[in-house]
C-alpha cells in the first residue's frame, strides 16, 4: 500500500515537471489562479493573486507549512510555481522544489568567476522565468542560462555582457511570445545600458535597445562629448508586457556617474525613463523621462503596472508607476502621454510636476562638496521591490521609504570595471526614518490609507482576492493587512530581514503564501 502511495505521488510530480508552459498560458494567467507563471503573476505587473481561501477572517490562523534554506543571504527571489513545482533562484543558482514539502527536486549552480566584482549592489537574484519546457535564469557574470525544467540541466548559456566592464545581472527575465527579455545591472560602473531579447529556443539575440543613444540617434544630443559611452542607464528590474499592443515596458536606471552630473550636461536620455519597446523588433515606440539629468541615484527601475480605467470620462489604457524619485505617475500606455502625477512620499527636490510631467526642480538640491540634505535618500521613496494592484479593491499598493540623506559630490574618473559614482550619501539616522505601506488611487496617486512601518522597507507587496495585502519589514515581520483599510490582521517574525516579493499559489487546492526572509524561503497556509 505504501509503495503504491509513493508511486502515486511521484507520478504527480513527474507529470507536473513535464508540463509545458506556453505563452498563451501566461497571457491567460488568471485562468490558473493556483499557479504563478511570471515574475508579477501576470503580464500587467499586478502581483495580485485571484486566490481567496485565505481571507480577513481566517488569516490569523496562517502557519508555516515548510521552509527552504537557500544559503543565499538577503535573497530577493520571487519564485515561479507551476503545477506542484516551485522554481527558485539565487546568485548563479536555481532549484526546483516540491510545493507540498519544500524538498528539492533538482539544484543547478554555476560558479561565480573569482575576478567578478559586484559594483553597487548585492550578490542576489530576483527570480526565474518559464516558457514551454525551459527555465530561464540570469547570472552575476552576465549570462542568460536556459535550464531543462525536468532536470535542471543547462541547455545553453548566452553571454549578455562583459562582467569585467561592470555588466551584471540580478533581474528576473520576462518570457513573452518566443522571446526572453532582460536587462542589466552596472549603473554604478559606467556601463552603457540596454534591454535585450533572446530567442527562447536557441538563446540567439533577437534584438537590443541601447538605453543611451549612439551618435546620430535621436536623444544622443542630450549627452556631452564621450559621456554617453559611460552613461549608465541600467535596466535591472523586470518590466511588463501588453500582449494586445505587443509592447514591452521597461524602466531605465540612473545616469553615470551617479552624483556628479558635471561631465554629462543635458537630460541624459533615456536614463531614469520608462521605455515602450516593440516586442518584435525592440524599436522604441515612446519614452517618458521621470528625472531628467538625475544626480541622486533615483533609477526608474521599477515594475510598472498596466491598468485600464476611466480618466475624465474616457476609457484609457494606462501605465502607472510609483517612482524612486517620490512621485507617482499616470501615463497613457499607447502613446506615453502624461496624464497625472503627484508626490506619494516626502520629497524636497521638486516643487511638483509641470503639465507634461517634468519635475520643477528646487535649486541647490544637487549633491555638492559640503553635502546637500534631500528627501528621499538614494534608495528612493520606493525601489526595486514590487508594488501591487488589486482589481478587487481598485487600489495600487506600494511599500514606501521615508528617509532623507546628505548627498555629496566627488570627482569621478572612469576606469573600466570599477565604481564610477562621483560621490555618495550619508543617510539620516534610522530613528528619524520610517516606512509605510500606502494604498493609492491608481488614476491620481491620492492616498487612500497608510500602514506605518518601524523602518524603511525592502520588501514588495502582494494583494489577493481574499481582500488581503501581504508584505515584509526590514526587521523580519511578515504581515497581512486588510486591503480596503490597511488594518493589520496577522504578523509573523521570520527572524531575517525581508528583501523579497511575496507570491501566492495552491497546493492540492489549498492556498499558500511564499516569502523569502534573508536566506530562508517560508511557505505558509491555513
Amino acid at each position, binding site marked *: 500500500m505504501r509503495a503504491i502511495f509513493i508511486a502515486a505521488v511521484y507520478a504527480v510530480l513527474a507529470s507536473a515537471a513535464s508540463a509545458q508552459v506556453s505563452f498563451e498560458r501566461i497571457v491567460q494567467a488568471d485562468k490558473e489562479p493556483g499557479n504563478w507563471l511570471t515574475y508579477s503573476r501576470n503580464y500587467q505587473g499586478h502581483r495580485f493573486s485571484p486566490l481567496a481561501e485565505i481571507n480577513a477572517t481566517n488569516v490569523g490562523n496562517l502557519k508555516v507549512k515548510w521552509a527552504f534554506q537557500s544559503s543565499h543571504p538577503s535573497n530577493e527571489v520571487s519564485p515561479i510555481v507551476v503545477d506542484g513545482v516551485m522554481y527558485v533562484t539565487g546568485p548563479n543558482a536555481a532549484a526546483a522544489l516540491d510545493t507540498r514539502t519544500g524538498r528539492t527536486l533538482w539544484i543547478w549552480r554555476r560558479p561565480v568567476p573569482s575576478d567578478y566584482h*559586484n559594483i553597487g549592489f548585492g550578490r542576489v537574484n530576483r527570480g526565474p522565468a518559464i516558457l514551454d519546457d525551459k527555465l530561464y535564469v540570469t547570472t552575476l557574470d552576465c549570462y542568460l542560462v536556459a535550464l531543462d525544467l525536468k532536470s535542471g540541466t543547462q541547455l545553453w548559456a548566452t553571454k549578455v555582457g562583459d562582467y569585467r566592464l561592470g555588466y551584471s545581472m540580478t533581474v528576473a527575465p520576462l518570457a513573452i511570445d518566443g522571446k526572453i527579455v532582460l536587462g542589466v545591472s552596472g549603473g554604478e560602473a559606467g556601463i552603457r545600458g540596454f534591454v535585450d531579447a533572446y530567442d527562447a529556443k536557441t538563446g540567439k539575440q533577437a534584438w537590443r535597445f541601447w538605453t543611451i543613444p549612439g551618435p546620430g540617434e535621436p536623444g544622443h544630443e542630450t549627452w556631452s562629448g564621450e559621456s554617453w559611452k559611460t552613461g549608465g542607464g541600467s535596466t535591472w528590474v523586470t518590466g511588463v508586457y501588453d500582449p494586445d499592443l505587443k509592447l514591452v515596458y521597461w524602466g531605465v536606471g540612473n545616469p553615470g556617474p551617479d552624483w556628479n552630473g558635471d561631465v554629462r550636461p543635458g537630460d541624459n536620455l533615456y536614463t531614469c525613463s520608462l521605455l515602450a519597446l516593440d516586442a518584435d523588433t525592440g524599436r522604441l515606440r515612446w519614452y517618458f523621462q521621470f528625472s531628467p539629468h538625475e544626480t541622486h541615484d533615483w533609477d526608474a527601475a521599477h515594475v510598472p503596472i498596466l491598468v485600464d480605467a476611466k480618466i475624465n470620462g474616457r476609457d484609457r489604457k494606462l501605465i502607472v508607476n510609483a517612482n524612486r524619485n517620490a512621485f507617482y505617475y499616470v501615463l497613457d500606455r499607447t502613446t506615453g502621454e502624461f496624464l497625472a502625477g503627484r508626490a506619494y512620499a516626502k520629497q524636497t527636490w521638486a516643487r511638483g510636476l509641470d503639465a507634461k510631467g517634468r519635475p520643477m526642480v528646487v535649486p541647490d538640491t544637487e549633491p555638492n562638496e559640503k553635502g546637500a540634505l534631500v528627501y528621499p535618500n538614494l534608495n528612493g521613496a520606493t525601489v526595486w521591490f514590487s508594488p501591487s494592484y488589486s482589481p478587487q479593491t481598485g487600489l495600487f499598493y506600494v511599500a514606501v521609504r521615508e528617509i532623507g540623506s546628505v548627498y555629496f559630490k566627488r570627482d569621478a574618473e572612469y576606469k573600466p570595471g570599477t*565604481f564610477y*559614482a562621483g560621490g555618495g550619501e550619508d543617510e539620516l539616522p534610522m530613528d528619524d526614518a520610517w516606512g509605510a505601506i500606502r494604498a493609492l488611487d491608481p488614476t491620481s496617486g491620492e492616498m487612500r490609507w497608510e500602514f506605518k512601518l518601524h523602518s524603511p522597507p525592502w520588501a514588495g507587496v502582494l494583494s489577493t482576492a481574499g481582500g488581503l495585502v501581504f508584505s515584509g519589514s526590514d526587521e523580519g515581520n511578515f*504581515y497581512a493587512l486588510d486591503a480596503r483599510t490597511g488594518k*493589520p490582521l496577522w504578523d509573523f517574525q521570520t527572524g531575517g530581514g525581508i528583501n523579497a516579493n511575496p507570491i501566492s499559489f495552491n497546493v492540492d487546492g489549498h492556498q499558500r503564501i511564499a516569502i523569502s526572509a534573508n536566506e530562508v524561503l517560508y511557505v505558509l497556509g491555513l
Partner: protein
Amino acid sequence: MPEGWFFSEEDIANVAAYVRSLGKVPSDPLPGDPARGAAVYGKSGCAGCHIVAGAGSGFGPDLSEVGDRRSAAYLRRTVLKPSASLPEGFLFVKVVTATGQTIEGIRANEDTFSIQIKDASGRFHSLRKQELKDLQKLRGQSPMPAYEGALDAVAIDDLVAYLAAQRAQE
C-alpha cells in the same frame, strides 16, 4: 561621511585592515588616580547598572573594556551628563500596558509590531505595540544619573581615570 556600501569585498578587507592598524584609543595622561577612582565607582552605585571585569549588573552598557572604545574626554562628558552622549541606537522608553502598568527601561529591540524593553531590574518585557495604551520614546534621555555636582572635581578625575584604565588584557 558617505556610506561605504559600494566597496568591493577586497576594498572592505583592505580598509578594515588599515583601520585596525590605527590601533585602539591611545591612553591620555590623566589627572586622576585609577585606584581612588575604583572606590568612587564602588561608592557611587555604578555597579548597580554596569559590569566591570565580570562584576556588577547588566542593565547599562558593559564597561569592562570601555577605555579601548572611548576617550577620556568622552567618558568625562558621559559621567557629568549622560544624556549628552548617548550610544548609537540607545533609546530609553516608557510604556503603559493595556492593564495600566507603566514600564520604563532601555529598548532592547523593536520591530513594526513588537517592542522588547529591559527594565532597571534587568527583566525583559515583550510587548505588542498595538496593545499598548501609550508608548513614549524618550529620545535624548538616559536612566543614568548625572554626576555633575554630585561628585567633586577630584572624584570625577579619579572616576574617569579608572574607567579609562578599563582595557582588554593584552
